[in-house]
């Protein structure tokens, strides 16, 4: 059976390689892909949008619908992870740890919840104490990473990056908090509810900017119609609209990444860690 699979794969590969012979050359100026739209983008984009980074102009302005639904897909991924994995059932077994000595109590099959205070605290089976060096270094690094992520979001117009990449980096800085301390620390700082609201809010910002353009009398996501609302140079209005959209994407992606991580790593119970 595996041999048959190998033969089929090889045949398909050979067919595809045969098909590449008909392709235009690499970087051919007369290829169908680069005679219609690309020239227009390259010539007009800077003049029309005042955004130096062509990729951002294409992604957030000319093909704004595409990016909007991409953001919606990321949001849906977060939602799917939450709905499939989140487990609201009450735990049967509980673990308590005596803080001064480190003795672990294991309570089975009891509905009663012991009182936790200074002496005893909740803990989980998988919990290991956070490593001192990793903890300290991550504590120092995380704010710098976050400012870098926000920089990437804000400078989507000038340099590579944008909402998606910045959001992912911000999300992984929060994930780093969960890795270096434990999951409880992250959940205490950033509540689950807040994450859900933010994930929806990011998509809402994107759609809302588009809808405001519609109310102002333009097409959906036609940023030029926003000019009366915002003071400043009307030439830059498209760049400003793109900035708003990027911020929405960043918020949505950050929240979705953290939701996915939390739900996967604790199998939906949110209890790994103390």
């Amino acid at each position, binding site marked *: 059976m595996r041999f048959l699979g190998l033969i089929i794969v090889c045949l398909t590969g050979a067919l595809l390689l045969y098909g590449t012979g008909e392709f235009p050359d690499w970087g051919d100026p007369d290829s169908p892909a680069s005679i219609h739209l690309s020239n227009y983008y390259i010539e007009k984009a800077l003049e029309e949008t005042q955004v130096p980074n062509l990729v951002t102009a294409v992604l957030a302005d000319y093909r704004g619908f595409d990016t909007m639904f991409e953001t919606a897909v990321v949001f849906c991924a977060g939602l799917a992870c939450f709905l499939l994995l989140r487990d609201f059932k009450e735990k049967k077994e509980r673990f308590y740890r005596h803080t001064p000595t480190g003795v672990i109590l294991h309570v089975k099959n009891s509905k009663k919840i012991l009182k936790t205070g200074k002496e005893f605290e909740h803990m989980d089976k998988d919990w290991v104490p956070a490593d*001192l060096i990793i903890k*300290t270094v991550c*504590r120092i690094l*995380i*704010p710098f990473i976050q*400012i870098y992520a*926000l920089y990437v979001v804000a400078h989507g117009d000038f340099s590579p990056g944008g909402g998606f990449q910045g959001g992912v980096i911000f999300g992984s800085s929060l994930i780093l908090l969960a890795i270096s301390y434990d999951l409880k620390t992250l959940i205490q700082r950033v509540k689950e509810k807040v994450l859900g609201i933010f994930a929806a809010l990011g998509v809402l910002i994107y759609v809302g900017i588009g809808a405001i353009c519609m109310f102002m009398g333009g097409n959906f996501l036609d940023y030029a119609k926003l000019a009366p609302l915002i003071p400043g140079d009307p030439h830059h209005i498209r760049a400003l609209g793109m900035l708003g959209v990027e911020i929405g994407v960043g918020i949505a992606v950050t929240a979705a990444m953290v939701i996915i991580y939390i739900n996967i790593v604790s199998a939906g119970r949110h209890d790994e860690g103390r």
Partner: protein
Amino acid sequence: MTISNNGVAKEEGNTKVTSLKSFFSFLITFILMFLSWIVLSGKFDPLLLWLGGISSFLVAYYFYDLLFPAMEPGYIKVFFRFIRYTPWLIWEIIKANFHLLYLAFHPRMKDLIDPHIITFKTNLKSDIAIATLANSITLTPGTITVTADQDGVFRVHAIDRESAEALPGTMLKKVAQVFGEEI
């Protein structure tokens, strides 16, 4: 917005001092974040500067206790002493790296190396001093910190006898002097 296992001392009674301290740590975090924003951005556009201000405010407001859990006035001195410590560390790293290069290119390497684990105890108290010492040990070739815990007990994996013998001496003294602790 505090980390429970962070060792943040919560003294009851003088909440005013605590809030003042947290305000100072917020301020210093804000300034650091804004400086790094300027270095990253490299553009002095008013819109971008405003955005930088807002982002550094957000980071400093929500995560001020990460960078400086409890701001002490002595931290500024520690910072300058740390800057004076860095060139010595880099020189030490370069010096010792050539030793490791010699080991890596030696044809009879397996006769030269003799890996073993040593344990020693120090009296360092604060987290950041222990982490600095551990990272310095790791950066100086020939030795890697395996574990370092709250009590200041270090387990170090050394690649040969020579680099193991030099271990707790000068570097520990320098680090303790930087952070103002007893040896």
